């Protein structure tokens, strides 16, 4: 297939996957027109839409893979093993790109040529325009599409997880299938508040949410991203505030929306800077006019910034790699401006992905129904921020990346510590989400671009799994969410308990070295920690960026196992809850099992390649025998396996696995060599190779931390060797500080909410005591003037008119007596009149 056909096919498939949920939304919002409130059909419609979307996305992924010959997946990367990092292995892009060239370039003879050239022979990214919305001067606003492996993986992941969540929600939301839903948390003067069920509306919002998120991922320009960014915000507002009658829910919805607006303010500033200096919003070069897109402008074709010698300017380049000219001079953007633009766009990501300092909205967002939390925390909303940071990576200078890394670092630590003391099952998960998002941001910030997005996908699987498990627990326990009231539930709800355990192990990053098995979180967290270690080796000043995530890996394992032990293990602490709880119906447990399998296995390579690098069960291409033969067969040694970051062995996964390769394939910025910033901060971004060198070290440390955390949790909550209450009593200050969520809410209350209240109190006072007084006085003056005016009207004008009327009337009355009606009298008058006339005529006429 030629690139044009492939591009069109990909576009059509993804557009279908994108628009199906919109169709579902339109159908569901008017569902009551052709169905009734008690019908489950709206949910089936939503599931069908998103499920078909998944099929479309998955086939698009397959089409893309076939078109590129699965070059991204060839298992020839082995620079991680120490004996192999010779000259060839130092170019990780080299081998796959060559393989791609062999497959695609039948008539080409560029086999042995340099990487840049051969990489071009297989088109990795496809882009184009759906529709041009408007054109103002040189500003073009259009609906574009941009498809590369990141888009495809995100589409497949989002639609798949959303499908599972939709199915789960059919069971979870069945309470709403009623004409009179009684909300136990809203009290009115007549007892509990009742309203008609909103089953169809819930699914309509879910569909709209998926549509917005898919549109965001498919978007081909940053302005379009912004549009869908806001749509995602609106949908989260609608869903968090689904129980809008509850005060807490409506407040949480407002909080989420307003916090996001704060971030979007920065986003808009970034947009304005980019448009002013680059004059375009497109990501990719225009296929028709050949105008350079943002990525090419800033990064050229070689993925490097073209910085001027004094480090103050970055030259912009056209599609062929030459500097853009304007008025005979090289066009450039100030380095500081590029930093500002990057930070601005990242501010949007901070809001959306609930990073420090805008993280407080996410825990409050737990007010929404649990399937919404699962969707918000895995596939949509918060994923959007990380996705954008990843998508926009080429625009970020090392200084912006440093900001991103520190924000991520602070966030992941703060959130993890709060999660340790949280008792609400959903809140623990919420804080763990914030913490994991911090990991992703940190990874992107330290140059582990692939690692960050890898973690985004693996995290999406196990976090949606855990949220759905918690939803199952909450539904089973009749809306009890406090973990101190649970305990021992694994005997009552085994499927939920053990699928949850899979998620807990995955997020903790645990692996079993002897069996060489690690769940998905192990691989992705390993990759992040390795990136951070390589970064801190190159920039010793920033070594905090390595130690914090390492320690937090331990904390993560601790609080996740604490959650599991408190909920499912031990003895029931509240007999009433225990007696009434029950396992969820099949419609809810099936998605759990499916997600548990994927949460464990999504990073593995066995689907594509077996341990020796031979094509596996589902491998789409026969891999070159020579290449496969190079793969070391020493997987028996578990130490070797571990020290290679789990890249070899029966479940060859992680960075050698297909998921990571697929994601890393879409990188615009190559990480072949370390890159040292020429800007104000002298930072070096580690190369792929440097990260691989430290991978064993980092992997071992992270695994030790995770094991330490989980063992501590087992001792404290599993066998109760150490009593948590004792520790709490010893450090009451720390405990209270953490329970208060680091007092961020208090701080924001004091910094923003209260000042606003004070200012508004002043405004009220000014209104009441100045404006109102002026108004009232003028009103009184007008009133008295009006009273005088009334008197004048009544006395003078009316009097005159009445006088005329009265006179006329009295004259008429007095003339009335003359009209006797007697004929003879009239004749007399005529005669007398004639005589008088005659007399007057005689006397008056001059003779």
């Amino acid at each position: 297939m030629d690139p044009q056909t492939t591009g069109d096919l990909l576009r059509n498939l993804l557009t279908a996957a994108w628009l199906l949920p919109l169709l579902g939304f339109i159908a569901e919002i008017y569902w009551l027109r052709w169905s009734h409130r008690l019908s489950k059909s709206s949910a089936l419609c939503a599931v069908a839409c998103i499920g078909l979307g998944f099929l479309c996305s998955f086939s698009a992924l397959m089409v893309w893979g076939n078109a590129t010959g699965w070059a991204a997946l060839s298992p020839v990367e082995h620079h991680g093993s120490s004996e192999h990092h010779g000259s060839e292995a130092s170019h990780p892009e080299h081998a796959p790109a060559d393989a791609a060239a062999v497959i695609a370039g039948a008539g080409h003879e560029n086999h042995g040529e340099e990487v840049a050239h051969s990489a071009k022979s297989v088109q990795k990214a496809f882009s184009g325009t759906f529709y041009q919305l408007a054109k103002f001067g040189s500003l073009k606003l259009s609906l574009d599409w941009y498809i590369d492996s990141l888009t495809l993986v995100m589409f497949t992941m989002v639609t798949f997880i959303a499908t599972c969540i939709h199915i789960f929600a059919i069971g979870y939301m069945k309470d709403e299938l009623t004409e009179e839903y009684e909300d136990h948390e809203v009290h009115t003067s007549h007892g509990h508040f009742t309203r008609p069920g909103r089953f169809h509306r819930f699914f309509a919002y879910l569909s709209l949410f998926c549509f917005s998120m898919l549109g965001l991922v498919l978007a081909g320009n940053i302005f379009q991203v912004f549009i869908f960014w806001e749509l995602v915000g609106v949908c989260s507002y609608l869903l968090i505030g689904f129980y809008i009658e509850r005060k807490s829910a409506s407040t949480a919805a407002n909080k989420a929306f307003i916090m996001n607006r704060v971030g979007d303010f920065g986003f808009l500033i970034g947009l304005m800077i980019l448009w002013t200096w680059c004059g375009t919003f497109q990501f990719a070069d225009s296929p028709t006019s050949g105008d350079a897109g943002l990525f090419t402008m800033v990064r050229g074709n070689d993925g490097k910034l073209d910085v001027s010698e004094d480090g103050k300017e970055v030259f912009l380049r056209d599609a062929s790699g030459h500097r853009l000219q304007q008025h005979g001079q090289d066009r450039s953007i100030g380095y500081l401006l590029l930093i500002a633009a990057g930070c601005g766009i990242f501010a949007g990501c901070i809001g959306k992905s609930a990073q420090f300092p805008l993280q407080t909205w996410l825990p409050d967002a737990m007010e929404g129904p649990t399937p919404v939390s699962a969707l918000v925390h895995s596939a949509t909303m918060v994923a959007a921020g990380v996705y954008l940071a990843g998508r926009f990576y080429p625009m970020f200078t090392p200084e912006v990346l440093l900001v991103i890394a520190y924000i991520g670092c602070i966030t992941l630590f703060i959130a993890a510590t709060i999660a340790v003391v949280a008792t609400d099952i959903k809140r623990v998960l919420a804080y763990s989400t914030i913490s994991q998002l911090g990991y992703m941001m940190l990874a992107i910030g330290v140059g582990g671009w692939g690692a960050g997005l890898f973690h985004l996908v693996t995290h999406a699987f196990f976090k949606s799994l855990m949220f759905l498990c918690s939803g199952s627990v909450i539904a089973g326990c009749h809306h009890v969410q406090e973990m101190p009231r649970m305990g021992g539930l694994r005997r009552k709800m085994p499927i939920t308990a053990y699928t949850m355990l899979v998620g807990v192990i995955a997020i903790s990053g645990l692996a079993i070295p002897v069996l060489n098995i690690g769940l998905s979180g192990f691989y992705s967290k390993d990759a992040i920690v390795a990136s951070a270690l390589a970064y801190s080796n190159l920039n010793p000043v920033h070594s905090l960026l390595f130690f914090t995530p390492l320690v937090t890996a331990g904390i993560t394992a601790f609080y996740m196992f604490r959650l599991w032990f408190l909920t499912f293990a031990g003895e029931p602490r509240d007999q009433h809850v225990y007696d009434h709880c029950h396992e969820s119906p099949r419609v809810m447990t099936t998605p759990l099992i499916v997600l548990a399998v994927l949460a464990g296995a999504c990073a593995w390579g066995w689907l594509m390649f077996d341990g020796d690098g031979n094509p596996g069960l589902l491998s789409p291409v026969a891999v070159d025998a020579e290449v496969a033969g190079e793969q070391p067969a020493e997987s028996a040694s578990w130490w070797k396996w571990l020290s290679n970051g789990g890249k070899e062995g029966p479940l060859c996964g992680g960075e050698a696995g297909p998921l990571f390769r697929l994601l890393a394939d879409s990188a615009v910025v190559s990480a072949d060599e370390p890159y040292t910033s020429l800007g104000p901060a002298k930072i070096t971004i580690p190369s792929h190779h440097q990260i691989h060198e430290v991978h064993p070290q980092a992997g071992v440390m992270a695994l030790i931390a995770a094991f330490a955390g989980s063992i501590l949790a087992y001792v404290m909550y599993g066998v109760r060797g150490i009593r948590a209450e004792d520790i709490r009593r010893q450090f009451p200050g720390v405990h209270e500080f953490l329970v208060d969520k680091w007092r961020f809410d208090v701080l924001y209350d004091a910094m923003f909410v209260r000042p606003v209240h004070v200012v508004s109190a002043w405004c009220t006072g000014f209104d009441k005591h100045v404006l109102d007084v002026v108004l009232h006085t003028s009103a009184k003056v007008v009133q008295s003037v009006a009273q005088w005016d009334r008197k004048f009207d009544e006395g003078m004008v009316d009097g005159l008119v009445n006088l005329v009327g009265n006179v006329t009337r009295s004259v008429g009355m007095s003339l009335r007596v003359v009209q006797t009606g007697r004929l003879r009298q009239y004749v007399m008058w005529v005669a007398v009149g004639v005589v008088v006339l005659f007399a007057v005529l005689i006397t008056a006429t001059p003779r």
Partner: protein
Amino acid sequence: MGGVGLEAYLIVGAILFVCGVVCMATKRNAIGVLMGVELVLNGANINFVAFSRFTPLGLDGQSFALFVVVLAAAEAAVALAIALNFYNNHTTIDVDRGNELHG
């Protein structure tokens, strides 16, 4: 030509006019009133004719007189119809009874 002069005619006309007015003012019978009207009109006619004979007025006065005769005939026809209607409504032709239009 001696004999009867203008004054004599005017006197006759004046007498006829006064007779007619007195008749109109005193008769309660509608027909009587009509007769008074005829007297008044013809008193005026005599004046016209006399003036046409004795002054340079010429035939104008006579033609006026002819018109008055025609007019009197028409008026009499209308008035008699009114009188008949009046009788139908009041079973009398006493004009003093027809005072419904008094103020």
